[in-house]
């Protein structure tokens, strides 16, 4: 058997790891997407880079971080951040840029500043795509946060790896089941949030 306290502790670490990385990705990703609006070249560079890195296996990304930053919590956060950043930047940028040109034209014509156009016109339209991106990033972060136990991040992954090493099924289950529940919770809660923030008058009508 695995102690309840051990599982709760690992679960806590897992949550901190997942959400710290996710928030970091959001905090960097959204400004990056806004910046991409300013320059077509920056945008195509970031989109190209995003598509590339998304094709690379997570395990390779986690491993490559070790020679750069060593092992432990911080390198793990960085690895997760790298992977979670891309869907957020990509979706937010697509959401922000795919807005009816006539509407932007009218907004500019009646005297909104570029910033006001982003804030009042582009952002509300980007919410659905942005939230889809954040949801995907959260699921990804939750998944990689198990894997990063191999570079010493702690969390539920430690239980899984210990279980693997000692053929201890209880430990394997104690590590993986909460992570799966967490994934389902993320999926449901973000879908709900997505519906809540989608402004009326967008989509549907």
């Amino acid at each position, binding site marked *: 058997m695995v102690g309840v306290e051990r599982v709760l502790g690992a679960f806590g670490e897992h949550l901190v790891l997942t959400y710290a990385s996710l928030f970091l990705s959001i905090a960097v990703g959204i400004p990056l997407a806004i910046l991409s609006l300013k320059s077509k070249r920056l945008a195509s560079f970031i989109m190209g880079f995003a598509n590339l890195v998304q094709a690379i296996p997570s395990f390779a990304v986690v491993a490559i971080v070790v020679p750069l930053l060593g092992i432990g919590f911080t390198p793990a956060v960085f690895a997760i951040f790298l992977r979670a950043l891309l869907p957020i930047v990509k979706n937010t940028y697509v959401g922000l840029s795919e807005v009816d040109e006539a509407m932007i034209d*009218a907004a500019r014509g009646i*005297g909104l500043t570029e910033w006001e156009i982003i804030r009042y016109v582009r952002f509300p339209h980007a919410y659905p795509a942005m939230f889809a991106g954040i949801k995907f990033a959260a699921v990804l972060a939750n998944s990689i946060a198990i894997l990063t136990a191999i570079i010493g991040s702690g969390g539920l992954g430690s239980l899984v790896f210990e279980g693997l090493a000692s053929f201890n099924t209880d430990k394997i289950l104690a590590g993986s089941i909460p992570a799966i529940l967490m994934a389902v919770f993320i999926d449901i809660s973000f879908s709900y949030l997505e519906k809540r923030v989608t402004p009326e008058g967008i989509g549907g009508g």
Partner: protein
Amino acid sequence: MVIEMLFRRIETVELRDVTKRYGDFTAVDHVNLEIIGGELLILIGPSGSGKTTLLRTINRLIEPDEGEVFINGRNIKEFDVVKLRRSIGYVIQQIGLFPHMTVKDNIGLLLKLEGWSEEEIDKRVKELLHLVALPEDFVTRYPHQLSGGQQQRVGLARALALNPPLLLMDEPFGALDPILRKQLQEEFLRIKEVLGRTIVFVTHDIEEAFKLGDRIAIMRDGRLVQVGYPDELVLNPADEFVAKLVNVDKKFKHLDTLKVKDLMVDVEKYIVEVQRKDELLQWMRDKNIEFAVIVEKGALKGVTDLKSLLKSQDLEEALMEPLVFSPGDSLASALAEMKRRNAFLGVVVEREKPVGILLANEVLLKLL
């Protein structure tokens, strides 16, 4: 709340040698034009002649490659571009309402950005809705819950929110069906009187130009061909092109042979049998029409429009007696009658039942 405008009123808007190129192509070619404060100047010309491009140099959505624009003698490059645009209303054919905002938020956005209080915004939005003949309870609606004509009214209200002394309108009624266009033109004439501001108005439609414009500027291939009052253009056209554009008379030769029934439009959509005002209002909103022909046991009782309906106490008060023709009447005399009575429509009746509508402008359009 006082709004800070770059200019309170317009003395002149002067375009000097304005040129805009796209690569090798010259969209606007050395245009010189002076717009006089208080007038409504029409820009008209074929598609691609540079009307939109020229208009947009005035609010600096387009910066000319050569030449300059002056408002009240000051080069508009001296002004902060956002302040300039807030001092100039802008209405476009595609309207460009924000679909995620209610009517109130659409109209009130600039007011909010200018720091107005909620109460002041509420009051102003209601004022503007009243001005463009929309009911107050539209404030909570979203654009997709409005008809095309209603959306365009909201677009106009939004452009007028900060009370700009200059208004740029790019084919504002271009996308509307003829009946609605007619009605909005009428209303716009009224609004124009109330506001008394300077307007530059782009259109394709020579009828609209004659109807709304004080002066008319004709463009072709990026160049300004002629500017003048309607009679000047008709009596002294600068060239064949202008003559053709403005001279509609010779096309009416065959008018004598036509009957009312040849050019009337279908009335089916507008016919309703109701007793009460609210009932009719609801029906018109459901059908998204602004105009109705009321019948009693199939026989014509009268006509009314949304605007009169909203203003009056009950249905009886709102009912107007229309000009009535029969299908076999001569079209020429029907038109003459309409012109004399200053009516833009007549109802065509056969054995007391309405069978069609005669719209002055629609008839002209079909004859052209």
